[in-house]
């Protein structure tokens, strides 16, 4: 994926490949600027004008990037739906929650207003919001309730895949737990596949059975969540885990061990391995070639000098 900005262009996301199985939850982990939102948006071709997209996005074997607008409109919402991180920006402030959700229902199904309204109330109940919230407006709801309302709307057409971009990062921890439980329930009870884009390793680990770690527009490591956390092989993945604060209540003075430096913006990524400037394991060859993402011990890894297995 390439972005054109003025005269310059840069690769925001570079040769990213992944599969999402039916009923699976995959976490795309990355810091701001790593390309996770770009990936989420490109699945539905929601990128701004000027973005060039190459590669393929296949849904049950059909390439979405080749679809005409009408065909694409039938996919959006109906087969793949999106939940954004800022529900206040995504909800219409002058329509009641119920009206908005009913509108989403009617956009995809030919039913009358009354039945759409009933469906909207049903969707609100699904996400744990009592019926009276249908008559409320976005500003009358708490952050967690707004995110639930947005998820209710995204469920209006029973999508097979829910793409959620930082669905919990704007919420306090108590609301976060609720939204995660809701998403987990949707996957387990309705078989909805989840693609969760987040910078929060903890959130992703709770929800997803597989994780893909993005760094500077590429996947550097991916695999089963439990294995990745137990034995990270890419130095960046290890660095992320070492940056986490210790569990509450652990005693003694704490000095965290973060990855040094910061990620480069997309237009000045180094040659060779993109992580090498920050990497404690980097050697000469890391600057000469870029490591490809290859299959090692049941996971995918792009590193010449991976962390030893423990």
């Amino acid at each position, binding site marked *: 994926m390439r972005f054109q900005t003025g005269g310059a262009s840069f690769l925001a996301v570079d040769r990213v490949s992944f599969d999402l199985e039916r009923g699976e939850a995959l976490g795309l982990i990355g810091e701001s600027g790593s390309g996770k939102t770009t990936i989420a948006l490109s699945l539905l071709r929601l990128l701004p004008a000027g973005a060039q997209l190459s590669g393929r996005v296949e849904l049950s074997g059909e390439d979405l990037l080749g679809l005409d607008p009408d065909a694409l409109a039938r996919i959006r919402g109906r087969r793949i739906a999106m939940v954004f991180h800022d529900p206040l920006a995504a909800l219409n402030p002058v329509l009641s929650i119920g009206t908005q959700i009913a509108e989403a229902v009617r956009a995809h199904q030919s039913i009358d207003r009354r039945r759409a309204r009933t469906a909207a109330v049903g969707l609100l109940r699904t996400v744990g919001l009592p019926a009276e919230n249908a008559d409320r407006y976005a500003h009358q709801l*708490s952050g967690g309730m707004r995110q639930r309302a947005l998820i209710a709307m995204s469920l209006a057409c029973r999508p097979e895949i829910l793409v959620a971009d930082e669905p919990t990062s704007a919420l306090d921890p*108590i609301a976060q737990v609720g939204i995660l439980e809701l998403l987990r329930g949707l996957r387990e009870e309705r078989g909805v596949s989840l693609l969760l884009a987040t910078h929060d390793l903890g959130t992703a680990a709770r929800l997803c059975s597989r994780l893909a770690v993005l760094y500077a527009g590429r996947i550097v490591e991916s695999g089963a969540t439990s294995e990745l956390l137990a034995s990270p092989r890419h130095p960046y993945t290890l660095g*992320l885990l070492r*940056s*986490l604060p210790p*569990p509450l*209540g652990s005693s003694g003075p704490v000095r965290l061990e973060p990855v040094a430096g910061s990620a480069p913006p997309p237009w000045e990524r180094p040659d060779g391995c993109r992580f090498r400037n920050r990497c404690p394991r980097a050697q000469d060859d890391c600057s000469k070639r870029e490591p490809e993402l290859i299959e090692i011990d049941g996971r995918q890894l792009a590193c010449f000098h991976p962390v030893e297995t423990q």
Partner: protein
Amino acid sequence: MNVPLLQVEDLCVDRGGLRVLDRISFALHEGETLGIVGASGSGKSTLARAVLRLLEPADGRVRWRGRDLRALSERELRATRREMQIVFQDPATSLDPRMTVFAILAEPLLVHRLERGHAIEQRILALLREVDLGPEVLYRHPHELSGGQAQRVALARALAPSPALLVADEAFSAVDVSLQAQMANLLGELRRTASIACLFISHDLRFTAVLCDRIAVLSRGAIVEIAEAAALVRAPRHEVTRALIAAAQESGIQRR
């Protein structure tokens, strides 16, 4: 004990006819870090603004080195403001998009007449080093920085006038864990070396517990519990504290 750096007494703030902060009282001493945690809407950010007198309280007072902020003259308030700095959550909205990093960092030095001529440049480079940025970012605009770099610049700007108090309002909530951890370590160092006091506002109890000497739990605009960080986590007394701890523990994957 000495006069606290910051003393908040029965502070009340009204908004739209509602009391959003209700009789908040606490003291912060030099070099001390106080965490303010609470759910969204509990009044954390309002508290930050009221302490800095970015909004007017309905009642109560804020004392800075023992003196009521409202009793200060314009000139004194200005000098006091140099000593109180804030870092907001989103650098995209807190950095002026038309200014270069150099200009962003030079502004507080010029406004407060702290440095002149070549010394400005030296000071700016030192600030960048402090937040782990190189001289290559000097002539960039905020949109030419990564999110992490931009937040470092926001922190460097806050540190530029050598404040005595740093207010971090969810400053590290939207950045990735490695930057969060770097910032946590940096704040720890600043506290030791420069004796900066910090009001650390966050919804992340785990980071707050690592960083802070004491933690105040805010709920519906009131402090429901305030205690030493370790004691608060070990033996929470209020149900809101317990709920926050439970939520933080659930999100706990083990560090390595």
